[in-house]
């Protein structure tokens, strides 16, 4: 019998592999049957031993068919579609090469806690691809968060020298990775330059780093209490505009990864973002991409924390 090592990988001896990691306190464990598989390097920072997983998945290989399983719940218009089959959620993944037959499928319970990933047999080599290859890993976490646990945002997050978390939210091209790189030159920890998860705790809103980094490559498996939220945009100077809670929630919802086809996920997102917007300073930050932006922010953050 083998045991998981510190990296959360159990090599096994012909009986398959166990691999586990955790994102925002959600422990995920997958087990294969008889084959090893590749693992995405960006998840390495998040690999850990998970004794009691929040999400447990088996991995198998067999031939998948082109026929749709059950009722279509959501079509991303791109690589994945979600179906409902007798109360079970079925994600199917397609590529131009696989045509009408999915190259992968995940069947999981409605609470997104237990299921099976099936890799379409004809497409796989000797070594299995990462069964949770993007975007499945992120989709799974986003859907599980929607079960009352939290919400993921398109944002960059930093932890200052006092241990407080500051969230910079923006669409692609808004400057999140630029800000992250500028912050990295100061005495802060950059949790992520592209994806941040917020969860409600007894002590307030907590923000977590994720593996799904942006161009600057920041992905740290830690968390911090959230102290402030800024919607970021490029500008002709550095300017901070205070937002009302309602405006903040509207702006955040437009930059959140919410599975809108799951009503509970929508309720969860509005709840978490509403609590954050009502209790924390929220602003729009227009900036120029140089160190003056960080000076401007640092000054504002001191004002907020000293108040």
């Amino acid at each position, binding site marked *: 019998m083998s045991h998981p090592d510190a990296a959360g990988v159990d090599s096994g001896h012909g009986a398959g592999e166990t691999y586990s990691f955790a994102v925002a306190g959600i422990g995920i464990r997958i087990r294969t049957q008889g084959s090893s598989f590749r693992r995405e390097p960006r998840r390495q920072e998040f690999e850990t031993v998970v004794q009691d997983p929040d999400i447990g998945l088996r991995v198998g290989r067999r031939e998948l068919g082109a026929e749709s399983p059950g009722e279509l719940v959501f079509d991303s218009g791109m690589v994945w579609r979600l179906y409902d089959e007798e109360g079970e959620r079925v994600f199917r993944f397609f590529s131009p*090469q*696989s045509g009408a037959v999915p190259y992968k499928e995940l069947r999981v319970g409605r609470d997104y806690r237990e299921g099976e990933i099936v890799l379409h047999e004809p497409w796989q080599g000797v070594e299995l691809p990462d069964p949770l*290859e993007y*975007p499945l890993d992120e989709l799974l976490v986003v859907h599980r968060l929607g079960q009352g646990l939290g919400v993921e945002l398109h944002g960059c997050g930093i932890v200052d020298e006092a241990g407080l978390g500051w969230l910079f939210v923006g*669409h*692609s*091209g808004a400057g*999140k990775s630029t800000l992250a790189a500028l912050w990295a030159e100061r005495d802060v920890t950059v949790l992520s330059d592209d994806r941040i998860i917020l969860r409600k705790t007894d002590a307030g809103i907590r923000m977590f780093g994720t593996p799904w980094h*942006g161009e600057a490559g920041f992905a740290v498996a830690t968390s911090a209490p959230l102290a402030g939220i800024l919607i970021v945009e490029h500008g002709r100077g550095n300017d901070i505009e205070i937002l009302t809670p309602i405006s903040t929630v509207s702006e955040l919802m437009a930059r959140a990864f*919410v599975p809108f086809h799951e009503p509970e996920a929508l309720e969860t997102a509005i709840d978490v973002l509403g609590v954050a917007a009502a209790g924390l300073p929220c602003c729009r930050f227009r900036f120029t991409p140089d160190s003056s932006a960080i000076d401007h922010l640092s000054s504002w953050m001191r004002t907020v924390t000293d108040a």
Partner: protein
Amino acid sequence: MINDGSPTKTVQKKGYVKPTISEVKLRPEEAVLGNCKISGSSGPLSGSCASPTTCSVLGS
């Protein structure tokens, strides 16, 4: 009603603020986690995200 001579208390009403509509821009193609932004797709033979050399960036 007896007037006790004390000044009349007036209730301060909030001024009417006309409701406004604010437009919030959505990016559905980003929100649905469609696929890898670098290779344009995921899966077999697509420059998979599993390979750090072909796709180390998901977007910003």
